């Protein structure tokens, strides 16, 4: 804003074409706009009534929204059609300063500012180092106090030798429970209502056949009476793989449609998942309950740096 602008006074008469409204019939336009404003006022007041008497929620939105919309339309139309149509102009001055101002500015910063630092290098260095040290150290409480370090936690689940498989109500699964083609989400007994049980230990139990089923070499005892258990955590991003298509014998992850072949150890044969779902080795105990032989043989869920 330079001093020249103070001198740019200008006068206009009301008949100046720039001061004329855009509308060809301003009085009619004014009446129409007044009408929309009145509708807006009525609707806004109606919102008050609707709120007072607790009408349905959609009436709140229609009255409030419609009212403000009409009022806004009125004000906008006033500005567009009834106010001076212009066009008006103003000068756009160079933002840059004059060469002399630049010279003074540059000199002030470099010579009075940075130059002073250069003359006392030791002090400048120590001050800088101090600020740097403070900056680094001040991040420590901000970051480290947030939570525990991962350590071995990503690898641990609640499944151990002999753990009973229970459903979401805590009822232990018996070998006679599922028919062939059935699926149930199971948790370690006692952990079905805990965060860890639901988030990490969640497992799907599928009955593929009536007889012992081997998914891969080395897993001959893992599928007693046709019961197969896989970790429910998708190895892509950890969504629960709850979608089972029993004729295709595929587990499909609902998030990004990775497809796991249940018959061969949940090998992903489509989609972005990189690794098969870990299989939980099972056995049927003397009373017929389905239990885990052991925990999972690898960390469950998506990959991370420390996973070997």
């Amino acid at each position: 804003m330079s001093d020249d602008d103070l001198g740019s006074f200008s006068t206009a008469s009301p008949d100046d074409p720039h001061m004329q409204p855009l509308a060809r019939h301003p009085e009619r336009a004014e009446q129409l706009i007044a009408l929309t404003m009145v509708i807006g006022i009525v609707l806004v007041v109606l919102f008050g009534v609707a709120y007072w008497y607790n009408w349905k929620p959609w009436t709140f939105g229609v009255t409030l929204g419609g009212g403000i919309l009409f009022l806004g339309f009125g004000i906008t139309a006033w500005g567009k059609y009834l106010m001076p149509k212009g066009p008006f102009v103003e000068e756009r001055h160079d933002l840059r300063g004059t060469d002399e101002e630049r010279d003074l500015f540059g000199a002030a910063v470099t010579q009075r500012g940075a130059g002073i630092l250069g003359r006392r290098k030791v002090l400048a260095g120590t001050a800088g180092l101090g600020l740097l040290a403070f900056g680094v150290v001040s991040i420590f409480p901000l970051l480290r106090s947030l939570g525990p370090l991962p350590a071995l936690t990503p690898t641990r689940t609640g499944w151990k030798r002999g753990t009973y498989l229970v459903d979401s109500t805590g009822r232990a699964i018996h070998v006679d429970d599922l028919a062939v083609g059935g699926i149930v989400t199971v948790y370690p007994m006692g952990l079905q209502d805990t965060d860890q049980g639901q988030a990490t230990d969640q497992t799907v139990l599928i009955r593929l056949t009536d007889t012992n089923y081997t998914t891969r070499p080395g897993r001959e005892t893992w599928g007693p009476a046709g019961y197969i258990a896989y970790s429910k955590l998708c190895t892509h991003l950890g969504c629960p793989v709850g979608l089972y298509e029993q004729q295709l014998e595929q587990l499909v992850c609902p998030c990004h449609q990775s497809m796991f072949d249940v018959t061969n150890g949940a090998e992903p044969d489509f989609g972005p998942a990189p690794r098969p779902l870990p299989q939980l080795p099972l056995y049927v105990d003397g009373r017929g309950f389905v239990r885990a032989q052991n925990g999972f043989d690898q960390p469950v869920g998506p990959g991370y740096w420390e996973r070997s």
Partner: protein
Amino acid sequence: MSTTINGPSSSKQSEESPYGPVGKVLNELDDRLGIAKGGRGLVDKIFPDHWSFMLGEIALYSFVVLIATGIFLTLYYVPSQALVTYHGAYTPLRGQQVSQAYATSIDLSFGVRAGLLMRQMHHWACDIFIGAMVIHMARVFFTGAFRKPRELNYTIGITMLILGILNGFLGYSLPDDLVSGTGIRIAFSILESIPVVGTYLAYLLFGGPFPGTAILPRFYIIHVLLIPLILIGMVTAHLFLLVRQKHTQFPGKGRTEHNVVGAPMVPIFAAKATGFFFMVAGAIALLGGLAQINPIWQFGYYRASNISYAVQPDWYMGFLDGALRIWPSWEWTGFGHTIPLEVFIPALIVPGIVFTLCALWPTIEAKYTKDTAVHNLLDRPRDRPKRTAAGAAIFAFVFMLFVASSTDVLANFSHISLNVVLWAMRVLVIVVPLITFPIVYKICVELQGVPGAGKRKRANIVSRSETGEYLAIPAEQRPGDGHHELDAETVPSYIDFQDEEPQDPGTRRVSR
């Protein structure tokens, strides 16, 4: 009573003003704040009128609506994952153990009067906010408004877009429902996938393994305080730069690099801006009342072993979802470590590249075109075919990622196998941008070659002479087509209202 102690020539007594009580108040303020000089500049400031300059205003006004409705919501929402038993109005939830966050969100929807309206307005305003930022950014990009001296403003804008998207994700995760909780699980895994520091970042942010009880209160404070503070600061800076550098304008009659043609702040731009603000708020309120969004009572409370099919993030996160779906399952394992590239690349590298490319575009273009002059006049997109085609190609790439996030909907709708649709998406994401570039380039070049392209065509009146010859004569210009036939003049400081003509007693002059 005279105030001649200090101050330059105070020729007028500051108590009296020929402009009535308003003028008196202005003088008092000027005594204290010195607003006369700068205020006049502001009041006379010219804003160019083109309609595409108002797209950023949509974003600004929806941001204001977000803050207003957001404050209402904070009065009722409790950001706690502690379990409570729900005893409210919605029967299928009664007796369930849900988190306080979910319970208070449901109470907002069913128990608080106008609570559902506020929730829905808040959510619609967010979707519109980010959408408006995107088309505003597109307008800025395609008209070259990011060039010197406005690179900083453009960078601030891109940062606001990223922060807006992040804040939207945090916001819709706050109710702790099944759909958004799945998104939080995915966010945890994405963080985990970062090499070397992934698990540390994930555990530090979540306060332990997933899900923990710290994440929602943290999301809440970031969503309600940290990011809005940054956004308000950035919006202020964005607008300040706009006022200081003055808005750009399209070339046209009377417009040069050294002037601004348009309407002054007072009264015309203020009226249009205020009116538009009301219309944006009104549209959001209408949507909030008539169109249901995020019905969390139908989704249920988030439990980590539950999932729904066809779960999608909000629209502005769709490009992440699409990239994650189509990326092949490349995972690198070696030396006792794993890098899940099928997560790391689509979720972090690809968006990183896209946003960095957008943010660095002013620098890239300046280097490529060797153009370091100050530009206050805009380009028509057709006049810069390479920039327009490149922008269209990048846009097409991101758009295809959005389309890829709806593979299951497409498969369902078109009865094509999901597997086929996914493979098609993998191919299209690469092919469509590649063919968009030359097509858009060609369109721009052709539009340049056609005079008057894009303008309303004049009708031709066909007449037949007596000898049988057909003549086509352009019709008269339609009223409004030659709207700017007036030369621009400076904003008048004084309006010379003539004294009324003396009237005969007993007569009354009526204006018609």
